C-alpha cells in the first residue's frame, strides 16, 4: 500500500485497536511486574510527514531514552518505547528496588541499563504478543537495544522502509502514564511504525480489504 490516503476510518479504527490492545497488554505486564497500577491513554493513529513525526515525539533534538525492536515474521515494522531519561531512571529504580539508579551514570550504569533493556523487552514483547493474538499473524521481535540520544536520530531508524514508498508515515502512538508509587508522572510512549507492506497483511488477516 503506497497511498496512505486510501485508508478509511475502518482501517484507522483497526490500527487504533492494535495500539489499544498492544499497549493495554504492555501496561498489564508492567503493572504485574512492579505490582503497581499503570494507566494508559487512548491510542492515536497519525499519518504524518517525517518531520511532523519528530515534532510530535518532542522535537528531533530532544534527548530521550529509547528501546528499539524490530517486528519480524509474518509482518514487519519498527517499535520504540520512548521516554525522558529521568522517567526511565524512575522505572529502573522501581524495578531493581534501588532508588537513585540511573541509566545515565557514567561507568556505573550497567545494572540500570540492563534493567531498562529488560523493561523494554517485556513491554514491547507484550505489545507485539497482543498484536499477534489479535491478527493471528505469527509475529516475533528482535533482541531489544537501547539508545539515549536525539529523538530524530533514533526514530529515523524506523522510517527507512517507509521512506522507499512514501514521504509520510503511519504512527500508532500510545502513552503509559500515572505509574503508581513514582515521584512525578512517568510518561512512556509506544511508537509502532509498521512497514509499508504490513498494512495489507494486517488488514487481510482481519478480513478487511485494503481498498474499500
Amino acid at each position: 500500500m503506497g497511498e496512505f490516503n486510501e485508508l478509511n476510518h475502518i482501517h484507522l479504527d483497526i490500527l487504533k485497536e492494535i495500539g489499544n490492545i498492544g499497549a493495554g497488554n504492555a501496561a498489564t505486564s508492567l503493572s504485574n511486574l512492579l505490582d503497581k497500577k499503570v494507566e494508559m491513554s487512548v491510542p492515536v493513529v497519525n499519518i504524518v510527514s517525517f518531520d511532523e513525526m519528530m515534532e510530535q515525539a518532542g522535537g528531533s533534538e530532544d534527548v530521550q531514552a529509547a528501546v528499539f525492536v524490530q517486528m519480524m515474521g509474518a509482518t514487519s515494522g519498527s517499535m520504540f518505547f520512548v521516554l525522558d531519561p529521568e522517567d526511565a531512571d524512575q522505572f529502573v529504580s522501581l524495578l531493581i528496588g534501588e532508588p537513585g539508579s540511573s541509566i545515565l551514570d557514567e561507568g556505573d550504569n550497567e545494572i540500570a541499563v540492563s534493567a531498562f533493556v529488560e523493561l523494554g523487552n517485556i513491554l514491547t514483547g507484550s505489545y507485539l504478543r497482543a498484536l499477534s493474538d489479535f491478527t493471528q499473524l505469527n509475529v516475533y521481535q528482535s533482541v531489544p537495544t537501547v539508545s539515549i540520544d536525539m529523538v530524530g536520530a533514533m526514530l529515523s531508524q524506523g522510517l527507512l522502509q517507509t521512506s522507499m514508498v512514501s514521504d509520510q508515515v503511519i504512527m500508532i502512538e500510545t502513552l503509559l502514564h500515572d505509574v503508581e508509587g513514582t515521584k512525578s508522572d512517568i510518561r512512556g510512549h509506544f511508537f509502532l511504525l509498521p512497514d509499508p507492506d504490513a498494512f495489507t497483511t494486517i488488514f487481510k488477516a482481519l478480513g478487511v480489504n485494503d481498498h474499500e
Partner: protein
Amino acid sequence: MIMSNIAELIKVGIADLNLVKAPQTIITSGLGSCVGVVLYDERRQIAGLIHLMLPDSSLSRTKDFKPGKFADTGIDKMLNMLKDHGANNRGLKAKIAGGAQMFNITSSNEMMRIGPRNVEAVQQILTDYKIPIISSDVGGNKGRTIEFSPEDSRLKIRTVHEGVTYI
C-alpha cells in the same frame, strides 16, 4: 528557497535540502543513520545542505519522491541549485556528517547498517564529481545536529554526549 541578506538560520528537514548565502547559516537536526552533506562555494559564500536518508534512488518503489531523500538525487539536485545561484561547480567543496548506527543490533536486516552505506555512497558520488571532502565526522553511534556558515566555511556539530565541535 529563501535567499536574503538578513542573518538568519535556515532549517532543513528530513529528506530535504536547501541553499543559503552568507550571512545566513543552514542547519539540520537529529542526524542518525542519515547523512548531512554540505556543498559550498567558498569564494561566493554560498552553500547547500542535504539531509539524506538512503544511499541510492534505485531503492525507491515510487517514481515520485523528494530528491533529498537519496544520496544520488540529492547531490544532483543540489549541484543544479548551486549552479542556478551562480556557484562555480569546479570550485565546490564538501563537508559531511552523520551516518551513525544508533542501535547496536546484529541482524540480517541490511537497514541496520544503512549509516555506513550512506556515507560510502556520498563519498563515491563526490569522488565521481571531483568534489573534495574537506572534513567529515561520520559513523559511530551518536546523533548529530549540524550547522554550516558559508561566511567562514565552518561546520558546527553538536552531539548529546560530546558537546559542540567544529570541522
